[in-house]
């Protein structure tokens, strides 16, 4: 399994890197999605793929059964998936806002040095 999954992780990272190097906002979003998935899959493979039994501790011996799977990487991945999902959702919303405010999806858009700041925005406000 490792032999199969390792190239998949590699391809995901390569594709994510390629997409992140583009100037377009849409491609950046997909690149970031691929990147977080690649990282999660990487942990999954690196921690070792095994057909383990559930790591439930036996009440009599007080120890997990022999050949139990390691629950830690799965807990890590689960946490990382949730965080990655939330942050990506935020990024998509932000991308929409970026597009609406600047009228472009080009990430190289640059504001003038003396463009208005939020200091002005609130100075007259009660």
């Amino acid at each position, binding site marked *: 399994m490792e032999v199969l999954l390792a190239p998949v992780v590699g391809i995901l990272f390569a594709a994510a890197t390629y997409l992140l190097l583009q100037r377009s906002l849409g491609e950046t979003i997909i690149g970031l999605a691929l990147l977080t998935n690649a990282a999660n899959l990487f942990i999954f493979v690196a921690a070792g793929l095994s057909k383990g039994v559930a790591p439930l501790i036996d009440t009599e011996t007080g120890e997990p059964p022999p050949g139990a799977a390691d629950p830690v990487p799965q807990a890590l991945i689960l946490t990382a998936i949730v965080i990655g999902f939330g942050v990506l959702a*935020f990024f998509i919303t932000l991308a929409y806002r970026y597009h609406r405010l600047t009228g472009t999806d080009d990430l190289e858009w640059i504001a003038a040095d003396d463009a208005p700041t939020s200091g002005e925005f609130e100075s007259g406000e009660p």
Partner: protein
Amino acid sequence: MNAWLILPIAWPLAAGALGLALSGSNTAQRLIAVIGAVGQLVAAVVLLLTVNAQGTQVLHMGSWPAPFGISLVADHFASFVLVAGSLAGCASVIFAALTVGRQRLTHGYFVLTNVLLAAVAGAFLTGDLFNLYVWFEVMLIASFVLLAMGPYPRQAAGATNYVALNLVASATFLVGAGVAYALTGTLNFADLALRLPLVESRPLVLILAALLIAAFASKAAAYPLSAWLPSSYHTPAPDVSALFAGLLTKVGVYALARSVTLFFPEDALVRNVVLGLAGLTMLVGVFGALAQFNMRRLLSFHIASQVGYMLMGLGLLTPLALAGTTFYMAQHMITKTALFLVAGVVERRTGTGYLKRLGGLYRTNLALTVVFALAALSLAGIPPFAGFVAKFTLVRAGTAVESWVIVGISIVVSLLTLMSMVKIWNEAFWKDRPEGEVEHDAARMHALPRSVPRWVVILPAGTLALASVAMGFAAGPLMEYAIAAGEELADRSVYIEAVLGEDAWADLETMTVEAMEASR
């Protein structure tokens, strides 16, 4: 039990939750924000005094024994930067409580600042690699929203850059944590420090080092991963910039310091890479700043430049150099936040941070001018201010091990920093107001009732500038503390024994022997 060790994290987090519950009342929001920040500062100071008296404090969450549960660890280094960080955070939150208007307030502004403060404390105190990742993410999501809150195109652009770059850095960190677990089967800092030397494959350890350094260096805005910082920090409202300037990059530096000193202390390659990064970061940042005419953008370039000094101590890795890094981080958080708060007051008063349109503030606002001068001189490293003590310690440490190149760079960069500060001084404070620029004297400097005098907005910056001066004059006792921190960082057995107990080494030996027998 040291259950109170969690207070610097739990207190602001609770304040944030309470703020969410009371989101109907604006006054309550402002009050709770200040209570959260001040409470954290008090907890941090108590922690510092305890560590000073009793040594490293450890709390095992849920009473799970060390490598299995999550440990919170407060040693000299962590508690010192925590106090400085919460002081800087406290000042920016108070500035925000004075100035932030109703619009942002009703969008949960102060809930987010409290969560940010809690996450920064969590990152400083945690003793677990994955828990550090989680605190980083908590900190980032709060900072994302704070950064994006506002109506301007360039703010959306700055936030987009910032979020994208930080997501990449987080993914790199996550892969690093995965490698660390795959190599050693543990994520606890102390346990990792014990087990990494046993890993036979040096390339794999170097890959781990590369991943962690890349991730933390980009959070810390070290060259060549620093471009995101000057393109985003000047875009939100000044109160947000001030909060970020003091805290966020320093968390990256802190994580880098922990991993270099605990995981790779004997690796010359890692050390030289960090030293190289330090030199480049200092130079590139300071040259970038010379070309800027936006006050906060100029100061942002200097954050990147100053991170180089902190990395310099890490690269030298002697106890004195690490003490220099500790002191530098602490004084930088305070001084830099003070400068950003001054920029904030200037922008509120004149409506712009663009240096070519500013001028004559020396005549109209003497108190602000004095505060700026104190903080700027400290940043540039002029005696007797705190910045001088920090730079002097680093240069001393550099000459002691005869790293002349980095010492030379640090001195040149110090002069160039002074040049930038003189530029702000000349343009904003000293020269006459340019022709045709009407004094945009804001009717409202703060968002409080009209009866409150306008000068209160200078108080947070003024307090920090005075703290920076005091750090210079009380350099003796503070430096002693920083040297204790440096010695602890240089000798990692202190950290390991505090977390895992004194028998950690013996336990490791028996476990290795057992594992070898089992494999036979």
